[in-house]
């Protein structure tokens, strides 16, 4: 069976895609489909003669698998929020149906438009089609409000793929996380469709403040937890994700399932995730010291709330851990993670312009990751020099 397929594929390659054949230019596309179906089957040319069984295709697919809980939960919750907004009878099947109706087009547009750019660049620049796009695409879709117009999805993912990644040379060479670059573009270019209280449930004219918005509007000196409770948000609901928000990010529990998978398979760096969470708790505790009758309600919010609100769980697990745009040293990963966590809380609490700070914190630290690494690497150079002089 495999042999037969391999032979057929070889025939197609030789007839259409090989050098000098009519579709030669589209070879990367053929290669992508061919190696999707069958492993490449190339052998090593020099030492090391044997290689590990893992490849990038598998690694990337594993990240997508880790996102399945978020995808499923997102689909359900989008429908659930519509049902709640329209005061419909809650039903699981109904919610999933509505959710699919809203979410699938967003995912399809993301993959179609982004994939087109990916293939176009692969063809022009003669590199392989990178599986990294499978991750970028789904990540981007999951960070959008369910009411987003599809043309914005198309424009933004184009920006993310082209400006965020391809102009630097493609996957592996980008400075910023492409999915977040796309989202940041949408966020700043189309604020009315990306933020505010009206976009989180896919129902026209319906508006509901997210927990983050509730807190940033709460009266000075009042209790943050009471303000959330008054808006109908319990810790359990927020953690489970039955709240308005971007498609895939509301459920911390779903994100944690994904994290468990990523850690068991050792695909994501646990240092970055741990760093993020430590940073949030630390900064939350620091701000707690400033609570008082005149202080922002946010100042008295127990830090564990920060972990479950907004896109923090999703961002720290799936976005901050992008190995290409994060720090590339173990010490650097800790620093990078902790600073992301601290920035998230700072932006949320102290900056009145943006209720959510995860996207900006991660992008900001993406930019600083090379600087962090620079110091870690210099320390290595100094250490080795000193050791040689001692000896």
């Amino acid at each position, binding site marked *: 069976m*495999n042999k037969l397929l391999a032979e057929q594929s070889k025939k197609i390659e030789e007839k259409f895609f090989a050098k000098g054949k009519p579709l030669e230019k589209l070879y990367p596309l053929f290669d992508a489909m061919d190696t999707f179906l069958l492993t490449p089957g190339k052998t090593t040319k020099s*030492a090391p003669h044997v290689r590990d069984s*893992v490849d*990038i295709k598998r690694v990337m697919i594993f990240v997508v698998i880790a996102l399945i809980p978020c995808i499923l939960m997102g689909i359900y919750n989008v429908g659930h929020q519509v049902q709640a907004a329209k005061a419909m009878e809650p039903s699981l099947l109904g919610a999933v149906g509505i959710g699919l109706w809203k979410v699938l087009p967003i995912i399809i547009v993301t993959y179609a438009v982004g994939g087109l750019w990916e293939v176009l660049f692969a063809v022009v620049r003669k590199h392989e089609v990178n599986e990294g796009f499978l991750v970028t695409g789904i990540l981007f879709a999951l960070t959008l409000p369910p009411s987003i117009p599809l043309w914005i999805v198309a424009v933004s993912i184009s920006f993310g793929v082209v400006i965020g990644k391809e102009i630097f040379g493609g996957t*592996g060479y980008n400075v910023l996380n492409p999915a977040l670059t796309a989202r940041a573009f949408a966020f700043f270019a189309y604020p009315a469709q990306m933020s505010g209280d009206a976009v989180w449930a896919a129902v026209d004219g319906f508006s509901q403040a997210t927990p983050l918005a509730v807190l940033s509007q709460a009266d000075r000196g009042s209790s943050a937890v009471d303000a959330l409770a008054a808006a109908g948000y319990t810790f359990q609901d927020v953690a489970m994700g039955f709240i308005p928000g971007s498609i895939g990010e509301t459920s911390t529990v779903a994100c944690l399932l994904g994290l468990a998978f990523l850690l068991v*398979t050792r*695909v994501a760096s646990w240092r970055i995730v741990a760093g993020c969470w430590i940073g949030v708790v630390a900064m939350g505790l620091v701000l707690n010291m400033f609570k008082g009758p005149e202080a922002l309600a946010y100042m008295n919010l127990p830090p564990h709330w920060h972990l479950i609100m907004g896109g923090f769980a999703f961002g720290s697990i799936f976005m901050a851990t992008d190995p290409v745009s994060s720090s*590339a040293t173990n010490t650097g990963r800790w620093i990078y993670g902790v600073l992301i966590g601290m920035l998230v809380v700072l932006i949320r609490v102290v900056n009145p312009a943006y209720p959510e700070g995860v996207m900006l914190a991660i992008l900001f630290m993406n930019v600083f990751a090379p600087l962090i690494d620079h110091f870690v690497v210099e320390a290595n150079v100094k250490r080795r020099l000193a050791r*040689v*002089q001692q000896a």
Partner: protein
Amino acid sequence: MGSYTFTKGKDIKLKGAAGDEVSDVLSPRIVAIQPPDFRGLKPRLAVAEGDSVKMGTPVITDKEIDGLCLVSPVSGKVKAINRGLKRALLSVVIENDGKNTAESFPSHAPDKLAKLKKAETIQALLKAGLWPAFRQRPFSKIASPKDEPKSIFVHAVNTEPLAADMAKILDGKEKFFQAGLDVLTGLTAGKVHVCAKSGAKPEILTNAKGVECHTFSGPHPAGNVSTLIQAVDPINKGDIVWYVEAQEVARIGRFFLEGTYPQQVVVALTGEGCAKTGYARTVQGAAIKELLPGTQFEGKRCITGSVLAGREIGADGFIGFYDTQISVVPEGGHRELLGWLMPGAKKYTLSHTYLSAFLPEQEASLDTDENGGHRAIVLNDTYDKYTTLDIVTYFLLKAVIAGDIDEAERLGILECDAEDFALCSFACPSKVNVGAIIRRGLDVIEKEG
């Protein structure tokens, strides 16, 4: 004296370990001298096809190092001179007449060896064709007799997959080994470091006289030359150390004691492709076909050295000069359906993305398949898990790719060789050949001086 333990790295437990049996192929029909074994050699032929040679007759000389030569390990006739691309000399094949007619060299009493003058020793080693046993760091090339090494390392610990056991290599040769060490001490004002696996046999490895003995433990690459040097006597820019394989030390000792070219070596025959694994006592440069009777070579890759660091030689190949191991493994190239999705209970991986990673470890059956397409480096945290060197591999790699030689030197490229990154290349999901890139950087630095 020092004892060093490493935790990073990994021993790949391959199928086809050598076992205990030693066979004798003491007079192989053909042997070869192969210039590609020697880094830095600029070979010039000293014989023509059909010439008669004795055991110890120079066959190839060097265009740069005065007096350096490679000699025939047997007596007989030059059967073939093989050249490759751009007429590069690949091998000189000698047909063994089995008589071992030898060139004669002076012999020495064991107690005189440590007192030999340095210049005399060097001349004797050059003439005997044993000088190439001395290699230097940086660059892993044949040492220059004019250099002053700050120390000499004896490489007696090998952690490569299915590596030969030192007890077999040096079996019965303790006397020669000690004699060789005595000769080495005369070549440096610094120390001679004998580096062995902790608990290694024979005992001479840990109680040799006149030298410093160190022990190493931990998974591969704990036994790599770079690891030993960085642990015991690290080098900075401008420093030179020499290193010699343990088997070569014994051969050098034997040469000085007996006054004839020491033709005999022991190699491990390993890998699941061998019909029968084991050890062979044979002649340096012997044809591997004669060592592996009954082995089918169709669809297999023959490597002198290990699967991680060795060189492909083909079924008609010969043992490499420095190698104590032949590996024969199946060739890959079989395409599998939806490989990226399958659970893979039998797939060997250092990652945790196959089911096999969660099952009890079994002896691995690995073929030469790359198991994936080439991509840009994405998982940059893979490399640091698999090198024992205090080197930021990912950044060194980037410096070399960017052509930033100064930065590469600052990051320690001179302390490394390609083999140190073999496990990084093995584990890299993007299938980047890290070692080859590092080697490219070293070549540029060497050329530009």
